[in-house]
């Protein structure tokens, strides 16, 4: 699955956050998020749109850079700054007229950074229950912080379910300490094999024909169920 991001210029329509615009730009933000997922990063993607032109795009790249602040929005803000410098445009004039499209609610850090750059509007998909800075943990977007730029407007909910599912997929495969780590197939299979053998050698009850057969059946059933479960999980990720 190749992610191609088309940098489109001047699509013609006016009105920064019309419904069709939201769909178009969010599509591309989701492409960025998928790219993050495929690269082992938290699946969040975003786009900075100024005057119907993409002036910055980003996806999470924390693991790649070993810098925990490299969230999609921070990457995109860097692109926006570079774009301004190369186009010889005033950063504050551009950022004051830029809309951010992001698959997940910006975290507290990113929300503060967006304020510092005076981004006026943020369109996001799902809430960020862990770190959200637009109301989930703190409401940085509207807080009274005179030294931290301007407040910004939020439009939320577009393809929220899809954004949540991507995050869930990531955290399921990521967390090495979680219960899921112990529920993998090889681990369970080895455990069952041990149980099976110990029953066979040490338990006199299972030595009769009938007991062994039932025991075998149960083991095979569990392995089959796990196989089915894993098949669906894999199917679901890709």
């Amino acid at each position, binding site marked *: 699955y190749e992610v191609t991001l088309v940098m489109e210029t001047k699509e013609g329509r006016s009105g920064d956050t019309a419904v069709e615009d939201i769909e178009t730009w969010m599509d591309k933000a989701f492409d960025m998020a998928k790219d993050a997922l495929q690269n082992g990063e938290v699946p969040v993607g975003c786009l900075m749109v100024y005057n119907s032109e993409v002036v910055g795009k980003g996806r999470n*790249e*924390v693991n*790649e*850079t*070993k*810098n*925990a*602040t*490299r969230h999609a929005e*921070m990457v995109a*803000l*860097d692109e926006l*700054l570079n774009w301004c410098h190369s186009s010889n445009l005033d*950063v504050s004039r551009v950022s004051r007229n830029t809309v951010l499209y992001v698959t997940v609610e910006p*975290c*507290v*850090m990113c929300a*503060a*950074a967006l304020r*510092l*750059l005076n981004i006026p509007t943020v369109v996001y998909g799902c809430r960020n229950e*862990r*770190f959200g*800075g637009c109301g*989930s*943990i*703190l409401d*940085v977007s509207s*807080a009274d*912080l*005179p*030294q*931290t730029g301007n407040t910004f407007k939020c439009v939320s909910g577009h393809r929220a379910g899809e954004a949540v599912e991507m995050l869930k997929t990531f955290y399921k495969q990521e967390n090495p300490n979680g219960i899921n780590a112990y529920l993998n197939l090889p681990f369970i299979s080895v455990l069952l094999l041990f149980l099976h053998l110990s029953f066979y050698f040490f338990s006199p009850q299972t030595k009769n024909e009938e007991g062994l057969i039932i025991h075998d059946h149960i083991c095979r059933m569990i392995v089959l169920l796990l196989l089915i479960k894993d098949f669906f999980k894999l199917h679901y990720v890709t």
Partner: protein
Amino acid sequence: MSNEEHIGLMEPPPKRWKGPMCVTEDSWVAHPVLSDEESQDIEMIEAFAAPIVDKKETSRLVRELGSIHPLNGLEHLKRVRAVKDKASPHSLEVLLCLVHDAPDTEAPVSIDSLLSSAVSSEGLGQPFVVNVPARAPLTRPQFELVSKQWPTSFHEDKRVTLALKGELFSPEQKARMQSYMMSAVAAAEAGKELGMEAVGAAMVDPSTETVVAVGHDCRADHPLHHAAMVCIDLVARSQGGGCYRFDRYPSCSFTPPDSDVTAQPYICTGYDLYVTREPCLMCAMALVHSRIGRIFYGTGSADGAFGTKYKLHSQKDLNHRFEVYEGVLGRQCEELKK
């Protein structure tokens, strides 16, 4: 008293005087920045209590009151208190119930109206209203304050008590902390020379007592390159990552990558940050994401997120908690603002 003696009393001479720029460790105190629950006064609520006239009834009263008026959510309160005033005719007083839980009765309240018919008021005197703390005290100052009103249980965190008294860090530790903050101050001054905001920061690995990275504000280049953000990226570079180049700034430096990758911590886990000014919300959350160990800052800032506007390190919904201290080399850091 002569003038000389007076000065001598007011200001003891510095122990080690090495020149006008010398600062001793006892010129500053690292104050812990505690959560609101730990630092604010505890809300008091009104309750009915009554003197125990007949001491023999005490255990019966405690048992029976416990069943008709259990102290739900107020388990920190002691049911009975000793009367300190020796002139008092009775030596014990018992908590009956909260005023807002009491059955509606006209004043003056009689003891029988507060007890159900199942409990005999024998041995009890005329009820009166007392103030009791609505929640358990978390620090010694809170405990001492509420105990004057009604006795409560208190599980003391000795570290917090020492920190509040300014006795948590030994003189040796303070000397090291001061030297780390000095390097942050020096970086801030170097940044100021280059036209940046006068803010500096140093990331320290306390387990090896080494400075991993030092940086200053680079806002003139990039509006988000605050000192803490610069330091975070410098640490990433020290681990073979990072995404900016601060090489043109001699005062932004890091310890070159350790050849043994397994010895590196995950991002800033376990590191201490010394920063001259209280971090803003962006930097504060960046430090949370970086799993910072502890933060020491010199002086507060207007929109600061570790004490002034927010206390991000004690934010309930965030899964990373850590200690924050302010006031390290406070006067020198304050002077940077001018």
